[in-house]
């Protein structure tokens, strides 16, 4: 299945160079791949995965190991950030 994967702020360093200009990469994943498995595949530091959104909706830390991605979804992750 195809899933859009986005990393922002300091986490964009974990994207391949060609994906940085859009902060975005299309992943071809096996069915039932979870959010946590994607985080681990890209070796993202767990502490840096603060804001995890699927199609803009927040995924709480406790659900990342069980939440399976679905075809066409967008997974976006930010480190701890804020602003105003």
């Amino acid at each position: 299945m195809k899933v859009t994967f986005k990393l922002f702020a300091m986490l964009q360093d974990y994207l391949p160079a060609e994906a940085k200009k859009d902060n975005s990469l299309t992943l071809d994943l096996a069915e039932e791949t979870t959010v946590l498995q994607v985080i681990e595949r890209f070796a993202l530091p767990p502490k840096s995965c603060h804001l995890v959104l699927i199609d803009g909706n927040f995924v709480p830390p406790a659900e990342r190991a069980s939440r399976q991605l679905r075809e066409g979804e967008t997974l976006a992750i930010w480190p701890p950030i804020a602003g105003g």
Partner: protein
Amino acid sequence: MAWTRNVLRVDLTNGTCKREPLNMEWAQQYLGQRGLATKYFVSEVDPKVDPLSPANKLIMTTGPLTGTPASTGGRYSVVTKGALTGAIACSNSGGYFGAELKFAGWDMIIFEGRSPKPVYLWLENGKAELRDAGHLWGKTVWQTEEIIKKAHQDPQVRVSSIGRAGENGVLYACIVNDLHRAAGRSGVGTVMGSKNLKAVAVRGTLGTSSVRDPKAFMAAAAAGKKVLADNAVTGQGLPTYGTQVLMNVINEMGALPTRNHRDVQFEEARKISAEAMHEKRPTDGKSHLVTNAACFGCTIACGRISKIDETHFSVVNKPEYWGASGGLEYEAAWALGAANGVGDLEALQFANLICNEDGFDPISFGATVGAAMELYELGIIKQEQIGMEAPFGSAKALCELAQMTARGEGFGKELGLGSARMCAKYGRPELSMSVKKQEFPAYDSRGIQGMGLTYATSNRGACHLRSYTVASEVFGIPVKTDPLVTDGKADLVKAFQDATAVFDSAGICVFTSFAWTLADVQPQIAAACEGDWSMEKLNEVGERIWNMERQFNLAAGFTAKDDDLPPRLKTEPAKTGPAKGLVNGIDKMKPEYYKTRGWDANGVPTQDTLKRLGL
């Protein structure tokens, strides 16, 4: 103490400057800065006063921690009746001016009346005098600062001034200090201009020697700084990416107001984001962002300093704009960009520079341009009236309109009215995205429900800095709440409003609240200030300030009907993103909020509430 106990009263009509002692009884009830200056203001000014009449007053005020080694302890505020809103106004600024004012020995300056001719106030420690500003009238903020520093032959002089926008009656004019920090909202600069007061220049060498228990204070301040340094948001996120890092987050969440709130996601958001500011441009191989920057005493350093692309159409043959300067911050980038559909980062920076140079609020300006572009696309305003084509997305129109507004020329005069008055003039008042005539900031309340209540009930008109529930609803600070529901938002908004009033009254930046709670601030205030400053008292002070401001607005003529959102946000559902199909639930949250506040069904504080708060 931490207060200098000195208030300077400047009678502009008669040209006199007089020192008077700070009311220490009030200081114990309202702390300082926003709270204490508002207490002075509401005690001295008729709530029904015309904001631009000599009877309105304008107060520049520091907090007890301003000028101390507390992190971010450099803030000052301007309190008046807002020209844009007709409501109580309190605009807060960083930079270095506030600390310098404290070092000169002043807690507060109260400006009264109207000078018969342009003047500026010169402060050198305890010396205060009004000086002729005839040669400064018509000058920009940047020119004014340079001329004053040269005249006093001292580069350390700190200047806070209005630009041409404040002289020309732009109703959302700012007071700008240190070139690009501003008391930005509600038209405080317009009030200053109406008083023929061009600038305040200050040099202070007295330091801050009034801290009650210096040893305890230094320990508390150091502990606070460690919390900020250890926190990933204030220690890493904000210094590296600034507030602009929000552009992609808020867009992804479907809460980025786009094209005058027609849409909630902007297809070009990434092009105007913090990530884009870090990238090297193809034209010159340099990144837009030069460095981050800090205000006085700040250990966060979220500020952005950027260099515009010298080949961009907006600055060709204009080398005065080629140097490193302030911007872009999130709010300005949103208002100048997504709000009117412009995805040209350099154009946004140019418009932002013009706002800084001539002193007007980029939020209200950008949002007003967005409203004008919608009126243009609807055929209500014609090309001949604007003087150019002005569809959504036109970077050229944005840049040209910014300059016209600064100079008070052509259609710029209409933009200077703000969106509420401009849209009313063209028979479409509902197209103004504002509350109490002040334009929304960068969060669509269909996607972040608590912000709808924040905007509707803000005492100074639509504003994110009165109750930043985004911290909770988006970032989970202090706890994560669901942005798409209204449940619990009344309590959340009240808690944020009251706590923020304390931060704003202490002399510190509200951005510390991403890492600090009041429990981190309390030891610093308690060590610095005379009196009992327990957590319980601070919470009460915050609530007292909020209700005092509310009372002023009610007496000024505002009612519960003014605590509302434009119909678009209540009847036109979000088209995309997580909030697709949702409108804001203000009608459900508002009665809950009134009850939580101890107000009656009409939004009026009950006698019990007033008595409990000593009002």
